[in-house]
């Protein structure tokens, strides 16, 4: 299957610059910044996901890439060429629209051929290309159908075929799986990534679904209020969020407010109402500084007896990173169980345990007094 599609002919930037460069892009509506000085580099062959809740500016950014919106200021370079001045129909960029925007009066075949015909491609070549696309998305028997005669999953694949038919330099995906139901979405995520890798096209996708972004993307950019807060591989975003918003937005997190009391070469101590946190990695901060301590629920241990010294990561941590509380709620989710523990400080934290063994006796019940503790290396310290 690897040779089904010719590699997309792209003039690689001579100086090895990133394939897509977004430079200080601003989009203002009246006095509101929809996109606020976003700069971003995407490498060739990457599947980059812009992640954020609705209204964060991710769709506006995507629409500026497609040319449907003009940036107030800033540059967009594709393969070294500034494309801001190009009309949407002049850009070597195709888009898979949210809920697909298939042409309802055309057959699947005509939908896929639409872009090729606009380019004045000879008929015989169009035929070859459309068949190739139908093969790619396995819709050959449906070529003569109209979009409304297809299921949601099939429509999604027609939309994909249509957006890939012209072999765009850059493919934009706007909530590509948003219109599918949960079960189908999970299967389609990997299918879609397979096809995109096979074609080798550079992609920028927009999604509000963090699971979708984590599964599909090589890198993720988290956006909020028009700003790009953090860019990184999925694991980086999750394990080393750079600010409160990202920590809280991606997955769930327990946050403790504290103050730095000790700042040594190999560790930091942060005092909060719950306990003293022993952080076994360096941070940028000075004693007396107010910070947030973030710990993911699955990184917290829970038991009804006090932890032994050997339970800690190192001897230095004994007595730190530990709190007591009462089990207030237990949510059994099948693969996981989430315990909601009310600490003596009054803070409510979440602890998740994997149910790796069938029929494990529930070690605690509502109202039980428990100890919770975590390792110093699992702590993320957030300054803003």
């Amino acid at each position: 299957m690897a040779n089904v599609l010719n590699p997309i002919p792209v003039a690689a930037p001579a100086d090895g610059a990133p394939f897509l460069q977004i430079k200080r892009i601003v989009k203002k509506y009246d006095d509101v910044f929809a996109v606020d000085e976003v700069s971003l580099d995407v490498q060739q062959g990457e599947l980059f996901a812009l992640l954020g809740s609705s209204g964060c500016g991710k769709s506006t950014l995507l629409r500026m890439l497609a040319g449907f919106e003009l940036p107030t200021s800033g540059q967009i370079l594709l393969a070294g060429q500034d494309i801001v001045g190009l009309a949407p129909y002049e850009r070597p960029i195709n888009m898979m629209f949210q809920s697909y925007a298939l042409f309802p009066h055309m057959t699947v075949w005509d939908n896929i051929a639409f872009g090729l015909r606009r380019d004045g491609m000879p008929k015989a070549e169009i035929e070859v290309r459309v068949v190739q696309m139908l093969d790619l998305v396995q819709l050959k028997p449906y070529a003569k159908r109209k979009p409304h005669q297809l299921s949601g999953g099939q429509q999604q694949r027609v939309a994909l075929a249509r957006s890939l038919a012209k072999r765009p330099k850059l493919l934009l995906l706007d909530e590509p799986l948003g219109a599918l139901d949960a079960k189908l979405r999970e299967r389609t995520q990997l299918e879609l990534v397979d096809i995109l890798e096979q074609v080798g096209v550079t992609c920028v996708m927009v999604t509000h679904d963090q699971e979708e972004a984590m599964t599909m993307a090589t890198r993720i950019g988290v956006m909020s209020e028009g700003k790009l807060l953090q860019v990184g591989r999925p694991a980086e975003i999750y394990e080393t969020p750079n600010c409160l918003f990202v920590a809280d937005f991606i997955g769930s997190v327990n946050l403790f407010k504290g103050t730095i009391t000790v700042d040594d070469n190999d560790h930091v101590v942060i005092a909060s109402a719950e306990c003293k946190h022993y952080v076994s990695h360096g941070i940028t901060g000075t004693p007396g500084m107010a910070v947030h301590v973030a710990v993911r629920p699955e990184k917290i241990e829970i038991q009804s007896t006090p932890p032994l010294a050997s339970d800690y990561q190192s001897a230095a941590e004994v007595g730190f990173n530990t709190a007591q509380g009462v089990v207030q709620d237990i949510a059994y989710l099948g693969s996981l169980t989430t315990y909601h523990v009310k600490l003596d400080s009054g803070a409510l934290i979440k602890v998740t345990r994997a149910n790796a063994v069938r029929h494990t006796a529930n070690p605690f019940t509502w109202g039980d007094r428990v100890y919770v503790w975590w390792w110093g290396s699992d702590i993320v310290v957030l300054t803003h």
Partner: protein
Amino acid sequence: MTISLRKGVSLFDKVSGPWGRAAVIAVPTVFLLLVFLLPFLVIFKISVSAMEAVYFTDVFTWADDALTIKIRLGNYLLLAQDSLYLETYLSSLGFAALTTAICLFIAYPFAYFMARSPADQRAALLMMVMLPFWTSFLLRVYAWKMLLANNGIVNNIAIAAGLITEPIPMMNTSFSLVLGMVYTYVPFMILPLYANLVKMDLRLLEAAMNLGATPWQSFWRITVPLSKSGIIAGSMLVFIPCVGEFVIPELLGGPQTLMIGRVLWDEFFSNNDWPMAASVAVVMVLMIIVPFAFFNKHQAESST
């Protein structure tokens, strides 16, 4: 045109049961039978009867144990033989077609920009389209007489401005007739077009542009085909009444502008030849219904 192909029980069926659907369809059916089919049959009967003084002869007579059916086709034969009738029919169709085409040409851009204007302005624009309906139709047609007459406002202004020295005869010509019909019927073209265009999914145009279509190409390949049902509805609403239009040809038309509505009027009220008038009417109705029935059938088949 998108027609849902899903078969199954709708909410309506669940609530009302199988008889509910029949009952709702029955109301307009009975209404149309009473006000359209029955009168049409009466007219048809008159068209194949003869006049005896002020009475029509019966089609069916029962005498001496014999049922006699007497269908007089003389009027229809006359319609076929007298080329004046054929000419009038063709001329009516021609004027109606021309009016429809001009209406479409004017209404499409209007409806398009109305549908694309900011949502808070659309209501006002729609109101302006319907404003003429607030005054009498006759009054508005008379107003055109005043405008177009040889000593009317248009000619007077043109002469005063020194553009012309002699008034241009505009009244009682094909020009005034078509102008009057376009003026009267253009809202009937705008409204269905607007209703269609306003609900169009604008992302389809973005999708077309994204795939390399220029705005002009997007318009012809996406907007126009998707507004087909609006174009058809508007054209029917203009074309059908225009074919049989009587008032406008009477007021604005001239001796050269043959319209079947006027012939109909003359046969009924000047000649008092009701059977002849009835046959003219029957042929006119068939002439419109038969092609549209074929067209509708074809439409229904091609959209599945």
